[in-house]
């Protein structure tokens, strides 16, 4: 006690916070159907009189749900991390971390995992971009499932190292390097994780090169089942990623604004290389058995790319080619597959006059997958895509603009083997979408968008049906928007959407044949008000009404009859109020009611409400 009293004057300044610090937090509760959720998070950072930095981050998620079987499911996730760190003024410092975690699921069995860790250590901080940190401590966990329980503990370590800066490489290069290691020395379920990353940047008058390389290893032991603690699994992971990017911009030709000529001119040449490799290996420890499937997988992704872009006067042009190679291995050779993608991507746009702009975008892409001849799991297949899109923008006046967009897209999916080639299909999609934007006055804005879309889908090996219409999916859409901001604090928005859909599809009937097809008309009205009366208050009521009529086309002997389906309607009311105080606190209340027609006079009613209190930006 005497010691505590004597030490108090020394400890107290390290606890008294100064005005320097931050607080962010959010607490929210929501309820809908048979689910209630409470999410709570808090982050505090404070500096004390002695210059110490304290930070606390905490998160609690609670969920209670009644399942369709009548069972009650409760879940709780809690995590807290408290960190204290010495002032960064001196090159040598210390750091303490206290970490705690609880996760529980209660159904008919109560499963709970408790985990806690403390780390104490120090570091050397010679500059802003270099440090070495090392911490050691203890870790303990408790797993429970019903009456079963197992406890475990051991040593914990953390090592962090970073070394970055200019002048560390020749020719003015910049180096970034870091190494982190986390060790969990629990006796039964230890874990190790190490990550090493190195990156460089060189920039000359005409060329620049960026490289990144990272390697991560982890070795984890775990309980494969939360109900059994006698069986232990092991998982080893290794991830490697690399990236190289080269950019060539001839001197004086770098894209930019030419002040003398008033033009944007120049061109670039790029080349990139990327690698991502993952190795996973999972197994049970020797001598143990349970219904757990061990296995190892290996995935490799390599990507090469080259491109150029150029600008001159009103013209802008870019052309890129990308090549990707992928390999997936699933433990056995005959379950492998490799993939190759070639992609050509080009855009060209021009400002024709002061009121007109136009442009074209084109993408051509083919991906081919190859598998071993005797593979029973994957198929040789090609996926091809062609997209050509053109747009034109005309501005009649500063208040009135017209933008028609015309596009064509073709997608082909091809399975090479006879086992799956019946699925081979082509999708041709034509789109015409003009839009008019008219700012009637400063307060009133009108926007009208039309979209006409024809989607032809055909199968390579389909059987023609004399009764069937075309295998066309047609869609027309009209969206009308009116926005009125007559009073600065009040904005009214009304949107009306009309949609016509007409589908004639194919179904598998021992070979593709025409399906029973349909057409549908939807009407959707959405009315929204945003009112800010002042004092940090805002209200946002919204009403949405949707009505849909559908017709099925049924076959009757030698003709097709159009029969109306049950009309569908839904109504949604949302009331939302937000108050933001001058100190940054935000209170939000939202109520929503949704009614949907189920036919035969039945309705489905869903009420949802949510309340939240927050501080700071989350």
């Amino acid at each position, binding site marked *: 006690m005497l010691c505590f009293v004597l030490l108090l004057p020394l400890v107290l300044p390290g606890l008294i916070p100064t005005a320097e610090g931050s607080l962010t937090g959010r607490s929210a509760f929501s309820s809908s159907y048979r689910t209630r959720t409470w999410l709570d998070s808090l982050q505090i950072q404070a500096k004390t009189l002695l210059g110490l930095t304290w930070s606390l981050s905490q998160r609690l998620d609670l969920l209670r749900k009644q399942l369709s079987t009548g069972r009650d499911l409760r879940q709780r996730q809690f995590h807290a991390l408290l960190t204290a760190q010495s002032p960064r003024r001196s090159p040598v410092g210390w750091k303490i971390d206290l970490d705690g975690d609880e996760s529980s699921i209660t159904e008919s069995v109560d499963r709970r995992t408790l985990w806690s860790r403390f780390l104490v250590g120090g570091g050397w901080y010679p500059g802003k971009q270099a440090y070495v940190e090392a911490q050691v401590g203890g870790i303990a966990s408790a797993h429970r499932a019903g009456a079963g329980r197992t406890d475990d503990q051991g040593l914990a370590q953390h090592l962090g190292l970073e070394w970055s800066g200019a002048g560390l490489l020749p020719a003015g290069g910049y180096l970034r390097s870091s190494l982190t290691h986390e060790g969990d020395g629990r006796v039964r379920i230890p874990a190790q994780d190490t990550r090493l990353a190195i990156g460089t940047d060189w920039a000359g008058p005409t060329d620049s090169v960026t490289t990144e390389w990272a390697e991560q290893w982890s070795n984890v032991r775990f309980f494969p089942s939360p109900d059994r603690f006698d069986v232990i699994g092991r998982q080893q992971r290794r991830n490697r990623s690399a990236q190289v990017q080269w950019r060539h911009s*001839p001197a004086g030709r770098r894209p930019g604004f030419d002040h003398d000529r008033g033009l944007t001119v120049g061109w670039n040449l790029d080349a990139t290389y990327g690698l991502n490799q993952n190795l996973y290996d999972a197994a049970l420890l020797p001598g143990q058995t349970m219904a757990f499937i061990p296995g190892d997988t290996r995935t490799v992704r390599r990507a090469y790319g080259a491109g150029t872009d150029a600008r001159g006067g009103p013209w802008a042009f870019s052309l890129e080619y990308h090549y990707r*190679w992928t390999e997936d291995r699933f433990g056995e050779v005959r379950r492998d597959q490799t993939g190759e993608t070639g992609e050509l991507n080009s855009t060209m746009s021009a400002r024709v006059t002061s009121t007109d702009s136009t442009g074209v975008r084109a993408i051509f892409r083919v991906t*081919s997958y190859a598998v071993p001849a005797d593979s029973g799991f994957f198929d040789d297949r090609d996926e091809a895509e062609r997209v050509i899109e053109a747009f034109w923008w005309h501005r009649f006046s500063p208040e009135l603009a017209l933008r028609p967009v015309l596009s064509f897209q073709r997608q082909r999916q091809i399975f090479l083997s006879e086992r799956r080639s019946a699925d081979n299909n082509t999708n041709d999609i034509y789109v015409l979408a003009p839009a008019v934007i008219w700012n009637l006055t400063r307060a009133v804005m009108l926007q009208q968008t039309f979209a006409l879309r024809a989607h032809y889908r055909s199968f390579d090996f389909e059987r023609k049906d004399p009764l069937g219409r075309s295998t066309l999916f047609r869609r027309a859409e009209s969206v009308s928007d009116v926005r009125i901001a007559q009073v600065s604090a009040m904005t009214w928005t009304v949107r009306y959407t009309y949609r016509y859909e007409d589908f004639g599809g194919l179904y598998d009937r021992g070979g593709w044949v025409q399906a029973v097809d349909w057409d549908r008309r939807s009407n959707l009205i959405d009315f929204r008000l945003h009112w800010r009366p002042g004092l940090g208050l805002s209200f946002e009521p919204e009403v949405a009404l949707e009505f849909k009529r559908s017709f099925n086309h049924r076959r009757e002997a030698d003709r097709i009859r159009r029969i109306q389906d049950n009309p569908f309607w839904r109504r949604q009311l949302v009331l939302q109020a937000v108050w933001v105080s001058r100190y940054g606190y935000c209170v939000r209340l939202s109520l929503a009611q949704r009614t949907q027609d189920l036919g035969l006079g039945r309705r489905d009613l869903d009420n949802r409400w949510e309340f939240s209190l927050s501080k700071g930006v989350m």
Partner: protein
Amino acid sequence: MTRLVRTMSLSVCLVLLLNGCAKDPFSTRRPDKPLGNGGTYLTPVDPPIAVDTNLYHAMIERNAGHYLQTMADSVVYVFDYVLEGPPDSAHSWGIGEESRIAGNMFSGVSSIDAFWEPVTGRVDRFEDTTAILYRTYRISVMMAKSDSALSLSYRGEMAVTLRRNALDLWLIVRWEDLHTSAGSPSWADLKSRFR
């Protein structure tokens, strides 16, 4: 002139480098004629087609291509917990992990049998550009490994959120999986075996 020569030589080197590994982005290979019945993949113009037809058949046929085609690149797979498999504090993963699992899973089992139907008392939700389908399912798999010739069963409940893409086709953007009984493993457990 020197600069031009240097630029040209750099470009030639680049072309030569790419020539060794380039692939023609315009050409596809010739397929074989199909054997027997037609395929099973339908244009997902309605949310139930994506889930009840395409996802179902992709599972039965162990077709990784069609399986991944039902999902958007931004898909998130969320689950309550797993009873087996490597530990992970996160309760979700994205398309990268899903793709790896699909490859592992379809190559690691010799047959899959599945059945799913709407959840009793829960109505599918259809909005203008999104939809949520609720399904209860049962899945039986026969493991391919000769040293562990096992037949295993999985059951649970899923809430699948779909979104209409730019081509007006429906793709899965969120797939939530739940256990329906404490002792019975769910789809998340099956996937977790192949992580």
